[in-house]
């Protein structure tokens, strides 16, 4: 009986350990390159991309694809978060002859879009900018521009050894990798509108066509999305607002 109890207890402990491990991995996905990819201006960026090696020719986009500094034909720059990343293959299929440069990355919002256009716009020299954003309306970190890499950075600051454990253990992530504080919905919306206007000002100021759509994952229904678009448009230069990312692809195809 004693042996059986020990076996049951052991099995329970092992199951609990596995459950914690799984829970922890879901709580904070692995970011083995967080330190390498943490970026002071964009929050995070691939190590060999134009954001890190701005003096190269050709420059390299976020997918690791090189592109020359001087464009020879149409160059489409795609910016934004998850939804923009998902849209990239479709844009490429739709524009077989055009050069598609990615500056989109999981967790990016309008702050990064504006930083890309503001700091790197002249170097990338796009003819069209495609922006799919708004995911930060659901959850916007209180530090503008923070990405999940910053969660790991903060955990390394709070507990360097805990962060080392969290790199290999999901259970340790529960304890040591803490979610960044987020803004209230109203503040997130105000910040988003402000950033979206900055993107439009920078695109317009550099005479680049901007095609924009709100990401379906922004969590807004049709009416709210239209209201948001109107709010952005109120004090922003003209741009092409699209109902959905698919419409962006259709418009790119038709033009």
């Amino acid at each position: 009986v004693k042996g059986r109890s020990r076996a049951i207890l052991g099995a329970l402990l092992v199951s609990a350990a596995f459950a914690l491990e799984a829970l922890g991995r879901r709580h904070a996905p692995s970011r083995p390159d967080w330190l390498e990819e943490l970026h002071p201006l964009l929050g995070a960026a691939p190590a060999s991309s134009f954001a890190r090696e701005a003096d190269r020719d050709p420059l390299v986009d976020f997918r690791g694809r090189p592109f020359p500094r001087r464009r020879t034909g149409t160059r489409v720059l795609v910016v934004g978060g998850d939804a923009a990343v998902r849209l990239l293959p479709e844009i490429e299929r739709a524009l077989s002859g055009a050069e598609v440069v990615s500056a989109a990355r999981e967790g990016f919002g309008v702050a990064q879009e504006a930083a890309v256009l503001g700091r790197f716009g002249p170097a990338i020299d796009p003819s069209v900018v495609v922006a799919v954003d708004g995911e930060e309306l659901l959850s916007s970190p209180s530090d503008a521009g923070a990405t999940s890499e910053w969660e790991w950075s903060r955990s390394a600051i709070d507990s360097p050894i805990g962060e080392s454990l969290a790199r290999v253990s999901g259970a340790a992530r529960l304890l040591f990798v803490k979610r960044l504080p987020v803004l209230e919905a109203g503040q997130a919306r105000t910040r988003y509108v402000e950033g979206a206007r900055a993107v439009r000002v920078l695109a317009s100021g550099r005479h680049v066509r901007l095609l924009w759509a709100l990401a379906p994952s922004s969590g807004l229904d049709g009416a709210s999305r239209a209201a948001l678009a109107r709010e952005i448009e109120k004090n922003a230069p003209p741009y092409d607002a699209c109902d959905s990312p698919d419409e962006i692809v259709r418009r790119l195809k038709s033009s």
Partner: protein
Amino acid sequence: VDEKRRERWRRTALVALAAAVLVDRPGVELALTWAGLAAFAVFPPRREKLGWAIVVILLLARATSLVPLGVVAHLGKPAGAVFIAGLAIAGFFATARAISPPAARPGFAAQALATIVALLISVEGGLRVAQEGDGDAVLANAVPLFAVTPVNGALAPTDEARLDFRQHLFEPRKPSATFRVLLLGGSTAWGYMQASRDATPAAMLERTLVPIARGRRPEVVCLAYPGYTSDQELGVWLAGASRFEADLVLALDAYNDMLFSSRRDAYPGYHHYWKQHRFGLGRPFLRELSLRSKILRPFLREWLWTEQPSATLSTTLVPGAANDFWLGGLVANEESLALLARARGAAFVWAPVPLSYDRLVPGPHEGDPKVRRESPFREEVVARSRAARERAGPAVEACGGTVLDLGRAFAARSSAGEDWFADECHLTDRGVEVLAEEVASGIARAEGVR
């Protein structure tokens, strides 16, 4: 007490000390450390080499964090000194007992080691008391978009009053009858040589801009900080400064872009504190040690902490006045700031920082090599400065901004009797006065700024 029980206590002590290494709360950490030390004092480990090594290493590691600042701050300095002495004595006896055979007097080696531990504790504690407040810059400063911030919450998206980067309290919503200037830039704009805000460019500008403000009260919100380049200025704007309802955005910069942050290993957004992230956080154990030990910190600083910001042609500067890394970035950022400021209804003025070489007649102490560097560095600086003014100036104007050539203004006003520069780019109090006067007079002459 039988040997089994002793062994159990020793293991418990080891676990307590190991836990203390992980725990970041000073009170719990201290309690665990004391518990571990007490267990070793009462139940010393057997004389086995491995056990010895573990015990000594853990004791030394813990000795560096035995005096949390909070405890000393709570007790006050005299009581803190007594506390440290008590810890040192306890550390001595605990170590001597821990590495001596049970029921035997500590030998020479044990006493020597115990003395070292006690000394370490004393020196460590003394340094902590003496250098109170020298914390971890990463903890307070690291932020996305503009790399580091001296004031957390300065750009928060709330309507609460907050401090600017020169500790001046301001409301995010501009009070009525106020002419608000956002001051962007690096150390010169921040007032690197000025201990008090009263002598900084921000305060001086509040005086010299009175005629331009036309009945309104000039208020300068300083969002400049040492080491910032135009990358950080753009980041500051995007991170929240755009909400501050500025009438005028003044970027007083370019030196860090063209020199200080143009290191061979730098990249856009780089700041010298950033090294902590890139290197310090990648070596957590060494970093932990450096954070906990004031003794070890100077030795580890070279690898883990902020690099000494120096610029020499051979090691740190990206060569070439036309180098696109810094010049392309500077032009792009100034253009962007001009566009963004104008879109918010604010005038944008770009004023590249004047350099000591701009003075035709140096002041009494401005011949010093620190103020006027020697060839070929000097020629490189002058060439870059010229390139920055020639390329960024027209770009700013094309975006609706105004350019102030403070270098030319300084040259025109040069008089031999005064020192305006403390080094190549940092101004004396008198230099700041001259700068504020020239900025005001330049703005008064420019159209569309007010």
